[in-house]
């Protein structure tokens, strides 16, 4: 029996050595370690042996079994490694390799419109400063677009905002509905509707009766915002624009405040940002001024707050507004605003 075990061991190990692939290995395992293998049979038959021999043969049989299991495990490991090696190294001729420069399966791809992206970016920045994003109607009442903003009928500032009027007459035969000329009307609505503290911005289309050319359209995008609270100052307005410019145009971008006039603010401000191209040294883009006009702003006029039912002696407020379309125009060097809105994919797919 002991001799038979030794022979079995020799044969099995020799056979194992010759095996080169995993399927033959399985055959080997069944033959030498399986339930019906000779080793198993012999170990089962130990009981019939005399006690002395049983002890020796039993120990030997178990040792052989352990040996078989460990060399098998080792062999599996070796074969797996070598088979991976074979797959990855065999036949290095170029034909067997993928031409990874062939184009991939063409999934259709689409992109967000550059104006949508810009609006989202602007909204995210103001959201991070605590402003709520609002949307409102493009069509508006004369009251919110003009009167509530200190521009009564025949105010000369209305001339800078030539207006489209809707074909609606009220019972007095007046045309009082229009396409908003700025989004400050949304701020006027918020002042009338909400109680301070208020911090809102409103992006969207605005409309002006103007001749169309490469830099002017009858409709374009604006974002307007307002903050009302106790203790809000023009220094805070500067801070908001400083923060916006840093986030939108890049860290450390300088912002310039210059006096300007809008009937709904006092003091009024024109906000300019350091030129994106020349960083203030002057170039063609900024007309050699080093600054790019961003928009208008100021401390909300006390009359505007009063009209909305907010006491200007208790609360202060700033308001601002700027055009959106010019921002991606400057960013990408686009010289014709009309490209954004004529749906030409040769243009839109570039963003």
């Amino acid at each position, binding site marked *: 029996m002991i001799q038979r075990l030794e022979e079995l061991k020799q044969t099995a190990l020799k056979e194992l050595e010759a095996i080169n692939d995993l399927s033959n290995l399985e055959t080997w395992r069944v033959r030498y370690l399986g339930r019906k293998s000779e080793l198993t049979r012999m170990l089962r038959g130990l009981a019939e042996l005399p006690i002395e021999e049983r002890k020796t043969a039993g120990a030997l049989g178990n040792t052989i079994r352990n040996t078989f299991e460990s060399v098998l495990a080792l062999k599996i490991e070796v074969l797996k490694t070598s088979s991976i090696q074979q797959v990855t190294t065999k036949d290095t001729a170029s034909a067997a390799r993928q031409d990874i420069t062939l184009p991939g399966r063409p999934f259709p791809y689409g992109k967000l419109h550059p104006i949508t992206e810009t609006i989202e970016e602007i909204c995210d920045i103001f959201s991070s400063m605590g402003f709520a994003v609002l949307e409102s109607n*493009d069509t508006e009442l004369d009251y919110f677009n003009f009167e509530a903003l200190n521009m009564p009928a025949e105010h000369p500032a209305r001339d800078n905002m030539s207006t489209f009027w*809707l074909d609606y007459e009220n019972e007095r035969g007046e045309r009082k509905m229009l396409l908003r000329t700025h989004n400050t009307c949304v701020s006027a609505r918020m002042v009338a509707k909400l109680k301070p503290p208020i911090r809102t911005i409103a992006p969207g289309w605005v409309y002006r009766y103007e001749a169309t050319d490469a830099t002017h359209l009858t409709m374009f995008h604006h974002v307007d915002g307002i903050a009302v609270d106790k*203790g809000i100052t*023009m220094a*805070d307005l500067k801070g*908001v624009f400083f923060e916006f410019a840093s986030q939108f145009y890049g860290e450390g971008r300088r912002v310039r405040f210059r006096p300007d006039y809008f*009937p709904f603010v006092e003091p009024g401000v024109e906000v300019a940002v350091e030129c994106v191209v020349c960083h203030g040294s002057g170039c063609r883009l900024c007309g050699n001024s080093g600054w790019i006009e961003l928009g208008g702003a100021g401390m909300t006029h006390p009359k505007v707050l009063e009209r909305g039912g907010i006491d200007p002696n208790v609360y202060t407020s700033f308001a601002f507004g700027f055009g959106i379309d010019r921002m991606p125009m400057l960013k990408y060097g686009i010289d014709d605003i009309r490209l954004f*809105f004529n749906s030409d994919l*040769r243009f839109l797919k570039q963003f």
Partner: protein
Amino acid sequence: MKVSYNWLKQYVETTLPAVEIADRLTMAGIEVKNTQVIGGDWQGIIVGQITAVNRHPNADRLTLLDIELGNRKENVVCGAPNVAVGAKIAYAPIGSKLIDPHNNQPTVLKPAKIRGVVSSGMACSEKELGISENHEGILILPPDTPIGVPLVDIIGDAIFNLEVTPNRPDCLSIIGLAREISALTDSIFHEPEVRYSETTNPIKSQVTVEIQDADLCPRYCASLITSVKIGPSPEWLQKRLLSYGMHPINNIVDITNFVMLEYGQPLHSFDYEKITGKGIIVRRARSDEKITSLDGLERQLTREMLVIADKERAVAVAGIMGGANSEVTNSTTSILLESASFKATSIHYTGRTLNMPSEACIRFERGISPDLTIPALKRATQLMIELGNGQAASGIIDVYPGKIARKPVRFAKSEFQRVLGTEYRDDRIINALVGLGFECQIDVLTQGVVAKAPYWRTDINIPVDVIEEVARINGYETIPTTLLAQEIPARHPNPLTGLKRRIRNHMVGYGFQEIVSYSLVSLESLIKVTPEKKKPEPLPVRIVNPTSAEQEYLRNTLRGVLLSALQLNKSYSDDGLQLFELGKVYLPKEGDLPDEPDVLCGVLYGKRHNRWWQGESDKVDFFDAKGVMEGLLNHLNIAARFDKSNDPSLHPHTRAAIIAGDKQLGVIGELHPAVAGHFELNETVYIFELNIPALLPHIGQKEYKPIARFPATIRDIALVMDAAITNQQVLEIFKGFSLITQVSLFDVYVGGQIPAGKKQLAYRLTYQSPTRTFTDEEISKIQQQVLKKLTSELGATLRA
């Protein structure tokens, strides 16, 4: 507005370079768009005098000039015809920068021999100096011009192109701007000295003025100048008008224009002899009244407009333009000079309605001070005596029914901190305001500020107006930069904003390109989306004053813009197209602002994938569109179904309404071939549309259910049924069995062994219990019940 720096310097003593002035003005709120410097390049060019004119030995049309330059003499060759001994000219030495008259480019004057004679420098034409296009002859300077001084000191200038904001009518004048510069640069300002003698009978005995509509005319002043001689105005005055861009007419008209530019007060001169009854009446126009204005056009007036009339007729549209019937002509000898104040809104209305944005109108409509009338009137009267040889009647007429005493503005000094976030020292506040002509005091004890604005500053009424002036003069850069310190207000985000963003991102992920298009469209583009080009009912919102028929209506659908986009892009490429827009449509509402719901509209067209190296791609079909909709609705957690639709723009065989609960959320389908034809689309178009606000109530909460612990059993069944039965009907049957947790259709088959009029649908059913493992027998039992129901309700049988 174009303003000459030289002219400004007559009133304000400054020697700062023009660019510096431009920068100070801009940074103080009066924007200088650009500055045109005249003579900036004239280094070395000086005034000379011709002392001899000799013939050129080799050329008939050239002369040799001896030029006296004060400390030296030069000889130059000259081709100009207007040379004369004694004339003062502009002499440019070799090396001067001049404009080459042949190509308009700047060039440097080089030493040259002209027809054999050396010319040491040049006598310049206006064109060569860059002043004008005149190259007919050389520039001849006034005889009293000193010799040897730099030319730039004589005729150099800078023209500021200014943009004055509507609140500063005072800055629509040289004096107003000079005052501003004086305050900004701390330099001395002086007003012109006005003095003249009144030599004829009192004006009151010669003319009367009656203001009938004082609400529109707070003040009317007039003077009378007789024995005037009409003729051209002197050159200095013409030059001033030209620098602004106005053309000289005659001395009287030029004086009224000059004083308007100088003071900002529009004036009007009537031919006194043409005033019937020698009486001026300021009144509203009669309803059918007409007047021919100075520009020769007949103007129809209305009751809302103010006129200046005599006893019989209107002689001027008040504040806008004079009438031809009382015009000053060459034979005029007596001038009735008007300097009045009119209500700004009335002038704005009249100017706008008559489309006459005259220089006078621009000033009046911004609200100039009634106190400006007298100084301007006296200044013009003086000039008419001096330059028109006239004689003034004694006294002036001053009817002033609208006099309002302006109160000083009072506020606590702490307002600076409250509004600006910074404080100023008392002297900085006072200096800034006094420099602008204010009277200002700060009470040491109460820290109260009292500021009385000068009469010309009609825009100063409340404390913030004064605060802005102080900030402006000290510079906005003195205001610090701080971050909002207040608590962030409660925000109530509009759920639509976030929803739209999710949908957009989702559509882009599905390979759709976003477009953004105009909301103003033509009616034609809106009716093209129906097969028979039907006018929409109700008609979309119309604009009263569109710029063109192309932008006359607010769109009530997005279909037109997307189909137009397909039409445009298919002409560039034969790639498949997948486009969407998420934007507003505008739906009219009786007597109220229109509804403006956001709508998602998408189109699919042509190839499913672009051409690829592993074979041609298929074309998109209805199920591509449906897959996108199902995916989007699933993403939004909306349980919706597809049901019958009667949308006329879609193909009657392939169209569906997207429904949740009992509300229609949108539609999907194949575009009606007739509509595709209207947009010249020769491939089949698939289109879908969702009303975004309608989605909101159907967005389900996300819920977690534990993953089933017991194994699922999968059974496939193939069912044969009438071809008219829909998949949905079969699904409804499966839905009745709660243990069927998942159903997927994996085959639809018609023909072959399936009888005509029938079809086969094959489903994979997943049976699963949350509480235990099924045995095969149990499954078979349930499936028997399912089949029974399918047979009894739909006539469907298991395939043999």
